[in-house]
């Protein structure tokens, strides 16, 4: 591996990321899977970075899942997106920040399509007007929320209480970074670092003290693939993909996985349990899995937020071994307590994968 070679490619894929006045749109599913992630982003942006960070309750789904599942036509998806842009225009913003990778891909694709086919954009404007009497301006900048954290990664590193370093050995943690497919694979120039060697998460890991692992199936999809998971008959295909990724990263003994997509952390996390049940195999040390985090969770951890406030108890794979490795303090007895400190009940434990 020639690190300079990668740096050269990274330098060619520098993307302009707005540094303030962000119009933020949430993901449909993230708040259910990893509920504190988006909250953490807001926390970092508003309270740590002190930015103008706006979101509106009128925002809806971007239609991405339905679009990728072939259940709605592209025009419908475009009209939905046009409405989101109208919300941004109404709020007086022009920097559009998406929380979801699929949304980000969807917006990129639509903007690019309108660029190539202006008549289509005109038609959508017309349709939006007919549907809800709204008009919109196209965003000046389109960013994914991981781009924001990437941009301010060094600032966060300065303020960090912990580093991604094994406290006992002083060695940097071995981190697998997994980028959502729709981040840059469709439009490499729209992602930080391009499609082949994306830098957006690698940059955070490096800033925060970890070591990025480049394993053979790094580029591979997490296995979600919309139709592959949502249609039950295809789920075997979904998990086979995930299985392939884990088999490929296993020899590198990763300490953790960091992701920037709503689906990926969920599937990389939950499928580990399923694989353990089906095959009796776990990929972490000592019968544990490999903990999977969103970049916001990792940012929160290094900034010193309480793991249970970050919602880490909702992870299937136990995070405690990693917290111990970094030296992040936590109270095991608080794991299954809600925000109001009431017991939310400890779930049943899986048979083949160690959990707490």
């Amino acid at each position: 591996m020639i690190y300079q070679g990668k740096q050269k490619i990274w330098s060619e894929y520098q993307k302009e990321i707005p540094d303030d006045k962000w119009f933020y749109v949430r993901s449909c599913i993230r708040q259910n899977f990893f509920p504190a992630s988006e909250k953490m982003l807001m926390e970092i942006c508003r309270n740590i970075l002190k930015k103008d960070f706006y979101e509106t309750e009128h925002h809806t789904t971007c239609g991405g899942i339905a679009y990728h599942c072939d259940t709605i036509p592209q025009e419908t998806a475009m009209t939905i997106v046009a409405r989101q842009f109208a919300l941004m225009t109404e709020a007086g913003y022009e920097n559009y920040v998406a929380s979801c990778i699929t949304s980000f891909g969807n917006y990129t694709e639509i903007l690019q399509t309108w660029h190539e086919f202006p008549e289509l954009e005109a038609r959508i404007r017309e349709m939006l007007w007919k549907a809800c009497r709204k008009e919109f301006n196209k965003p000046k900048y389109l960013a994914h929320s991981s781009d924001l954290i990437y941009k301010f990664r060094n600032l966060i590193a300065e303020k960090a209480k912990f580093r991604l370093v094994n406290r006992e050995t002083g060695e940097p943690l071995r981190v697998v970074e997994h980028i959502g497919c729709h981040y840059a694979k469709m439009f490499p120039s729209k992602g930080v670092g391009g499609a082949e060697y994306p830098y957006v998460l690698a940059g955070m890991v490096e800033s925060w003290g970890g070591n990025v692992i480049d394993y053979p199936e790094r580029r591979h999809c997490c296995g979600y693939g919309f139709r592959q998971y949502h249609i039950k008959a295809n789920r075997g295909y979904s998990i086979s993909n995930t299985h392939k990724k884990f088999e490929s990263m296993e020899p590198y003994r990763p300490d953790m996985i960091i992701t920037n997509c709503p689906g990926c952390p969920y599937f990389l996390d939950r499928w580990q349990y399923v694989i353990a049940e089906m095959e009796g195999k776990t990929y972490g040390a000592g019968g544990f899995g490999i903990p999977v985090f969103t970049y916001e969770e990792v940012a929160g951890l290094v900034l010193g937020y309480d793991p249970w406030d970050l919602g880490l108890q909702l992870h299937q794979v136990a995070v405690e071994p990693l917290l111990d490795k970094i030296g992040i303090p936590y109270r095991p007895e608080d794991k299954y307590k809600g925000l109001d400190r009431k017991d939310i009940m400890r779930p049943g434990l899986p048979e083949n994968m160690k959990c707490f």
Partner: protein
Amino acid sequence: MKEIVVIIGGGIAGLEAASKLLDLGYSPIIVEKSGRLGGHVARWNRLFPDMTPAADIVSELTERTKGANIFLNTEISFINRLRDSYNIKLSNGISINTSYILFTTGFSLFEAEKKEEYGYGVYDQVITNGDLEQWFNTGEDHRISGKEIGHIGFVHCVGSRDEKARNSQCSKVCCITAIKQAIELKEKFPDAEIWCFYMDLRLFGKKFEDFYTKAQRDYGIHFIRGRVSEVSENIEGKVIVKAEDTLAGKPIKITLDLLVLMSGMVCSQDSTKTAGMLSLPVDSDGFLKSSDNVMHITSSPKNGIFYAGACTGPKTVPETLAEARSAVLEIHSHISRK
């Protein structure tokens, strides 16, 4: 007075043209931007299909052009078009007035880094055809020398026939070069297994097909029809290559110790830059545009300006030499007609 012909580029086309111009009693001037003659061929080791040493060709050509004016390390600063002639200003301050300019500016190897998925410059085990030739010549390349080489891969059409790489044309010589290099590598590493990943094998030239069957039968080189999709590195530092075996209709992957990318031929930026000074057109394939591609491949649309060799498209060494001679003949008949 002897007619002056300015030859831009001191590769084999320029040298051959100069030697023939000398034979005909003209006074050729070679302008070469680098510090040595022979162009790409001077960096190569042996030439297909008879394994002729490239150095022999370059030295013979250099020998034959002793009587020519040669400016090394010299670039064209600008060219002015006069009434019937051209005024060329060189970077060394000399200016030449001539009625005849011969472009023998050649080609550039496609920059393999641009095919990011192949990891040239990122993975230590990935080299290009150019690197390999150089290794054959010098024996020095930390990516090959002193390593245990058990499995070697060749990726054909790197930057050729690839619209994403902005070159939809076939580079013509890479198929046979890959086979030649595979045979040479097999001779150096007799125990190695060699895998060629190709889309089409275009073995058009004299004895090329023999070369191919020899590679298959006598050297046991394996050919897999399918374009490599991505290259990654495994924990042992070897590269894993993925492709589709289109004949088997299945994805295929293999772990290799060395991967050679067959970089294609693209028009050199210097060619287009110099051609731009004279507003010479560029063809849809990115190479200089001849006045027509059948009868007048060596003529430009402009009076007194001629082409020879790979500046008008990918060519083999013998084709380049033949074209140089034909360009000289074209110039000669122009001069004689005056």
